[in-house]
C-alpha cells in the first residue's frame, strides 16, 4: 500500500490509466441515471410505478452522490504538505463549502411561509372562515385535506356541504357542521378514529364559528 501511495504522489501514471479505476462507479451511475430518465417515463401510469420528474430529480441527485462516493472510495490516497499554508487554508474552505451546500439544500426544497396576518386581513366571511381553517391555532388542516392528494387523518372535506346536508335525517348541513365542531363525538365517520379536539368550540368565538361554517359550506 505504501508503494501505491508513493506512486500516486509521483503522479507518474498517464491520465487515462488513472481514470480506469473510476470506470465501474461512473458506468454504474450512468446506468442508474438511464434507468431513471429513460425506463421510468416509459412505464404506463397504471403500473403504479411511474415516478414524476421531482422524484426522478431526487433519485438522480442520490445516484450522482452515490457515484461520487464510490469514486472517492476508488481514488488514490491524497498526501498534502502538512503544516503548509495550503493545508491551513483548506480547513475553513472545506468547512464553508459544507455549510454553503447545506444552506443551498434548505433553499431548494418545497416550502411554505404563512402570511403574517391571514385571519385579520380577510375580507368576506368565507375568506375569514378559510383563514381560520388554515390557522395553526385551530389546526383543522392538520387532519383534513380538501380534494385529496395529501395524507389525511380525518375525512377528506371535498364535497362536505353536500354530505353534511344528508348525514343525519332532519338535520340541515349548517346544523350538522355546528354539532360536528362543538361535539365531534356525536357522529364519527366510519373507518376514522375519534381524534378530533373536543374543545374546538371553546377556542372559537361565535363569530369565528359562523365564519368557519360559512367556509365549510362552500366545499361542494
Amino acid at each position, binding site marked *: 500500500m505504501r508503494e501505491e501511495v508513493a506512486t500516486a504522489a509521483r503522479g507518474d501514471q498517464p491520465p487515462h490509466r488513472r481514470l480506469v479505476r473510476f470506470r465501474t462507479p461512473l458506468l454504474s451511475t450512468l446506468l442508474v441515471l438511464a434507468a431513471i430518465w429513460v425506463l421510468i417515463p416509459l412505464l404506463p401510469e397504471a403500473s403504479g410505478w411511474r415516478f414524476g420528474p421531482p422524484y426522478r430529480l431526487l433519485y438522480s441527485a442520490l445516484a450522482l452522490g452515490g457515484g461520487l462516493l464510490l469514486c472517492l*472510495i476508488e481514488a488514490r490516497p491524497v498526501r498534502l504538505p502538512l503544516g503548509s499554508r495550503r493545508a491551513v487554508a483548506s480547513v475553513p474552505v472545506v468547512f464553508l463549502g459544507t455549510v454553503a451546500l447545506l444552506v443551498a439544500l434548505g433553499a431548494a426544497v418545497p416550502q411554505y411561509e404563512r402570511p403574517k396576518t391571514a385571519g385579520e386581513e380577510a375580507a368576506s366571511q368565507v375568506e375569514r372562515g378559510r383563514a381560520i381553517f388554515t390557522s395553526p391555532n385551530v389546526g383543522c388542516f392538520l387532519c383534513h385535506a380538501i380534494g385529496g392528494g395529501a395524507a*389525511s387523518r380525518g375525512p377528506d372535506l371535498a364535497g362536505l356541504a353536500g354530505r353534511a346536508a344528508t348525514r343525519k335525517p332532519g338535520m340541515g348541513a349548517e346544523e350538522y357542521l355546528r354539532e360536528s365542531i362543538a361535539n365531534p363525538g356525536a357522529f364519527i365517520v366510519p373507518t376514522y378514529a375519534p381524534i378530533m379536539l373536543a374543545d374546538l368550540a371553546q377556542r372559537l368565538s361565535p363569530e369565528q364559528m359562523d365564519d368557519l361554517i360559512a367556509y365549510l359550506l362552500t366545499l361542494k
Partner: protein
Amino acid sequence: MPVDLAPFGARSLVWVGAQLHLLFAAFVLGAPIFIVICEYLGVRLRDPRYERLARETMKVVVMAYSLTALTGAFFTFTLLGPYRDFAGYLFVRFYPVFALYGLLILIETVVMYVYWYTWEPLARRGKGFHISIGILLNLLGTVVMLLMNGVGSFMLTPPEGVERASLWDLINNPSWSGLNLHRFIANITFGGFMVALVAATLFLTSSKKEDHAFYDWMGFIGNFIGTATLILLPVAGYIYARELFLYDAALSTFLMADKLSWFFEVQGVLVSLLFLAANYYMWLSTQRIAGGARFAAYMRRAFIAMVVASAVWITPQNFLPDLTSPAPLGVPLTDIVIPERAAFLGLMMAKGLAVTAVIALTLLNYLFYRRALATGSIAWGQIDHRSQYVLIALPALAVYTMGLMGAVRELARQDWHVYRYIQDTSPYWYAPSLAYTSLMLGIITLVFFALMGLILWLGFGLGKAASP
C-alpha cells in the same frame, strides 16, 4: 411586543443567541464526559495518549466555558426586551429552577477550574481523586441540563391544568424524559465530533511527525465516540417523537406531514450524510491497516446498500410544501405525489427499516475494521489526508442538524409560547420558511465555528508560536 430589535428582528436575534448558547453548552457538557472516560482509560490501559487527549480537549473546554456564559447573557438580554412578558412568566413559574440553575452553574464553574488546575498536582498521586472531581463536574453539568430541559420541554408540552400544577409537574412534563435522553446522547455525539474536528485541524496544521501520529489517533477516537453514540440517536429521537404523539397527535401531523415535513426530509438527508461520512472515514481508516484492503469489496457493497437505504429514508410522500397547498399551476398532481405501488416507501415503517439498515451497515463496517485490525497493525499518522476533511465536515453537519432539530422543536409550538396556553402575539408568530431557517442555521454554524477557531488559535496556535 414592547420593543423589536431592528434591523434583524427580535426573533432572529433570540434564535442566534439561544442556539449559540446551546451549542457551547452542549460542548461543555458533552466533552467532559468524553474527557473523564479518556483520563480513566489512560490510567487503566497505561496509554499516555489518552491522558494527552483528555488534557488537550479540556484546555478547549475551559476556554469554551466563558463563551457559554457570554452567549447565555446575549440570549437572556435579547429575550428580555422583546419578550419580557413571557420571560417574566417563565421566571415566576420556574423561579426555584432558575435560582438553583444559577447556583449550580457557579459550583460547576468552580469544580471545572479545580479539575483543570489540579491536573498536574494530582498527576502522580491522587489520580483517582482527580477523576472523581471530573465525575462530579459531569454530574453537575447533567443536573444543569436537566433543569433547563424542564423549562424548554414545558413550553411544548405543558401538563394539564398548568395554572394549578406544582413545580415538579411543570418540570416533569410529558416530553421532559424524552428530551433529556435525546440531548444527553446527542451532547456526547457532538463532543466526539468536536474532538475529531480539533484533531483534524491540528493534524493538518502541524508539521511534526509525532503530532501527526497523535492527532490521527485522536481524530479516530473522536469519530468513534461520535459515531457510536450517533447510532443511538434515531432510537432516542423515536422515543421523544412518541412522547409528543401521545401528548397531542396533532403535533406529530404538523411535524411529519404538514408544515415541517420538509424539515424532516432535510433531516433525513443530513443524518444520511453523517452516517455516510462516518463510514467513509472508517473505510479510509481500514485502508491504512496492513492487509485492510482485502475488505474493500465487502465495504464497497455496504456503501451501495447504505445509499439505497438513504434513498428510501428520504423518499417523500409528495412534493407539496404542506397539507393544504394545491399543486402548482400546470403541474399534474400525479407528478408530485408518490406513485400508488411505491406508496409504502413514504410510510414510517419503510423509513424505520431504512434507518435500521443504515445503522446495521455501520456496525458491519466497524466489524470489518476490527477484523482488519486483528491481523494487521495501524500506521498512525499515515492515514489518507482526505480523512481529515471528513472529520471537518462531520461537525459542520452535526451542528447544522442540531440547529435544524432545535428549530423544529421550537416551531412545533406554532403560534404559542406555551403550547395551547400562552399565545405568541408578536409579529413573528408564524413558522418561517425552510430557506430562511437554513440561512439562519448557516449563520449560526459559521459564527459558532469562528468562535471555536478563535479558541483553538488562542489555545494552540499562539502557544506554538510563542514556544522556541
